[in-house]
């Protein structure tokens, strides 16, 4: 099993390295290599999954092994692999959807200029995502957390010639960084108080009371900040709709099924460290996100943006599930959502591929042209809207039940359930609005309609596979055992009253019944309303839109979040940058330039001294010697008699001198 786990992680890495360097020279530009690698990873993940499935009691660990990675003095950082039930199901989700997206991309990206590089990036992302779910400590999860962010950045900006795409990639990366700072701080609090990074060690020490009270709440909320960024929760959700600038299969893999779910996964992985206050915070953030994003999705015209807001909304649901204590519900929804949202994105990619437009005003009546896409898309929509027996119904119902149960136990927070129920209805409404605008009715743009055609086999096959997985019954009966809720570490020290416990149990039963019927009711009414407005056209959307102009504008402009950030954070940052730039240019550069000027002045002075003084002295001596030599050479006449005469005078002088 450990070999399987390691191979699952290393195969995509190997494929990425080969692909990025020599992919272009391989046959078919090497698309088969990453695809093959990720399919192998999927096959290797199956035994792990079945092992978990056949021993599905809570806390079952399939593989746990770690190795020393770094050592500074007494500090030892280990790096290891930890596979429990949650990891095993995440491995299946990631490898399966990634495989299908790779296969789909072979058709979708055909003929792209950077076809080979696209697969390399996709494979890098898969590696990072698998690392994220496999790693056994906070330090490692942070590393892979940033790596998936890098993969996302590279793929959103894949068509970087488009300014909107390169802007979107920067926005995604920077927004994520904001959340990551909080997560990093949280991890540092854990490390500085407990001195360990490993999940199991941290959980044990927290259960022993190593970190508790307000500090633990703060730590949990800080770690959740990472999830706010990565899972596009309010108020850092703004990057996800813009991330739709990337290729559609990327949106399906990264921005619907896996990376954005990483935040939910992380909350699930570290679930036991959250205190009740921290969980409440998570639930409230999730509620705001779910409701806000659902309302924005109503008015969007871009097919991918509708799905993007729907993703944000569903991620909010998962957070509410976790926050209200429905661990199983939240992670179940993560799993089902991964499949049906990937299906919806790939389906929308198929539509975009056919009509070369993302605007729903250009579509309509595509049902006959693209039957496979239509039927699979419809299944995805039914799943997302929460219609039984499709998968989304079961998981969303579980979340609603969890929220209701929470509301029953803490009546002040009943509004969470109400908002969730309302969002469920809105979800059904906007998804069927999308179906009616895209697939039924009359073609709005005849030229594009005539051009439209069903997508190639590599693109429809993943749609069919995902559609099968979106049918709910295959999830029945085992998932709640596989993802059984772990005991909160903070609860281990607090004895839970037996009476209260049984009361909660009674509430749980009641909550499930209410949630079941109410969710069917709201989904049905949402669908009905959409049909009335967009299919039978009994109510004019335009008329209502102009009647509720302020509301419409508010939603159309996405609650003015981008404008607000523009006016506050971005402007403040730019302003601060300009001040720093001015400081840099005036003071720092001035100082450096000043030193340079002084040095150069001093150097030229020294040069002058050197030239005039030192050289002058040397040259002067030489010149004096020259002058004298020039005089003296005149007595060297070459005439022997002159010499003799001189010798004579010399002797005479000596004589005279001798006399004294």
């Amino acid at each position: 099993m450990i070999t399987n786990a390691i191979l699952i992680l290393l195969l995509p890495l190997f494929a990425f390295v080969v692909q990025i360097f020599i992919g272009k020279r391989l046959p078919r530009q090497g698309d088969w290599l990453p695809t093959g690698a990720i399919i192998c990873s999927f096959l290797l993940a199956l035994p792990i999954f079945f092992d978990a499935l056949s021993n599905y009691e809570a806390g079952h660990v399939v593989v746990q092994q770690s190795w020393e990675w770094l050592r500074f003095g007494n500090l030892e950082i280990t790096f290891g692999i930890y596979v429990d039930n949650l990891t095993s199901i995440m491995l299946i989700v990631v490898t399966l959807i990634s495989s299908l997206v790779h296969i789909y991309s072979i058709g979708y990206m055909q003929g792209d200029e950077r076809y080979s590089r696209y697969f390399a990036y996709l494979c890098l992302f898969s590696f990072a995502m698998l690392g994220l779910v496999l790693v056994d400590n906070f330090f490692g999860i942070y590393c892979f957390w940033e790596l998936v962010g890098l993969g996302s950045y590279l793929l959103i900006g894949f068509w970087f010639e488009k300014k909107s795409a390169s802007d979107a990639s920067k926005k995604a990366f920077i927004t994520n960084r904001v959340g990551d700072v909080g997560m990093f701080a949280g991890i540092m609090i854990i490390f500085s108080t407990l001195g360990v990074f490993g999940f199991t060690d941290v959980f044990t020490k927290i259960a022993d009371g190593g970190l508790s009270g307000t500090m633990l709440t703060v730590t949990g909320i800080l770690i959740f900040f990472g999830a706010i960024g990565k899972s596009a929760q309010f108020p850092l959700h703004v990057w996800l709709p813009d991330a739709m600038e990337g290729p559609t299969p990327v949106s399906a893999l990264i921005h619907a099924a896996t990376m954005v779910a990483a935040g939910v996964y992380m909350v699930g992985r570290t679930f036991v460290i959250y205190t009740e206050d921290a969980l409440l915070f998570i639930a409230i953030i999730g509620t705001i996100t779910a409701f806000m994003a659902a309302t924005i999705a109503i008015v969007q015209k871009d097919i991918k943006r509708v799905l993007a807001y729907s993703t944000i909304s569903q991620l909010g649901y998962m957070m509410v599930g976790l926050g209200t204590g429905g661990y199983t519900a939240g992670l179940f929804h993560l799993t089902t959502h991964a499949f049906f949202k990937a299906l919806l994105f790939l389906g929308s990619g198929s539509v975009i591929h056919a009509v070369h437009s993302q605007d729903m005003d250009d579509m309509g009546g595509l049902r006959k042209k693209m039957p496979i896409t239509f039927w699979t898309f419809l299944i995805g929509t039914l799943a997302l809207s929460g219609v039984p027996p499709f998968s989304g119904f079961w998981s969303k119902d579980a979340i609603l039940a969890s929220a209701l149960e929470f509301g029953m136990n803490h009546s002040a927070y009943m509004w969470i359930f109400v908002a969730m129920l309302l969002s469920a209805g809105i979800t059904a409404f906007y998804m069927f609005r999308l179906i009616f605008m895209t697939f039924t009715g009359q073609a709005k743009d005849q030229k594009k309609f005539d051009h439209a055609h069903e997508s190639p086999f590599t693109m429809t096959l993943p749609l069919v596979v995902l559609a099968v997985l979106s049918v709910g019954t295959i999830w029945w009966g085992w998932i709640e055992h596989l993802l059984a809720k772990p005991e909160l570490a903070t609860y281990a020290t607090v004895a839970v009253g037996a009476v209260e416990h049984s009361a909660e149990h009674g509430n749980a039963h009641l909550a499930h019944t209410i949630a079941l019927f109410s969710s069917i009711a709201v989904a049905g009414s949402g669908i009905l309303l959409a049909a009335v407005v967009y299919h039978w056209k009994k109510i004019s959307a335009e008329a209502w839109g102009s009647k509720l102009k302020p509301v419409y504008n508010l939603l159309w402009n996405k609650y003015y979040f981008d404008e607000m950030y523009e006016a506050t954070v971005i402007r403040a940052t730019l302003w601060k940058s300009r001040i720093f730039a001015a400081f840099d240019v005036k003071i720092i550069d001035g100082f450096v330039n000043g030193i340079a000027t002084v040095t150069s002045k001093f150097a030229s002075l020294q040069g002058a001294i050197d030239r005039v003084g030192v050289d002058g002295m040397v040259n002067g001596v030489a010149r004096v010697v020259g002058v004298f030599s020039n005089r003296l050479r005149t007595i060297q006449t070459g005439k022997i008699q002159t010499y003799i005469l001189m010798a004579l005078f010399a002797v005479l002088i000596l004589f005279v001198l001798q006399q004294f």
Partner: protein
Amino acid sequence: MLAVGLNHYLILSAILFCLGLFSVVTKKNAVTVLMGVELILNAANINFIAFAKYVDNDLDGQMIALFVIVTAAAAAAVALAIVLNIYQRLKSINLDEADSLAG
């Protein structure tokens, strides 16, 4: 009657030396210069012999005088050969013209 003493010989020698020196220094003809050299040598010989007679009263001075005469003859022969060579090269024995070593 003035007796002939050492001083007389020395004065004679000095006169002879001066004459020789004069001809060495002033004459342009190389052969004349050589003749001046002979006069200087002979002035020295007179000194040797005078000192030998009046001071030591033995024959050492005469011996050295004889050596000087022999070496002077040899020197004169070598010098004349040089002069002949100079003549061959310059077609002149004028010492003023033999100045190719001048700085």
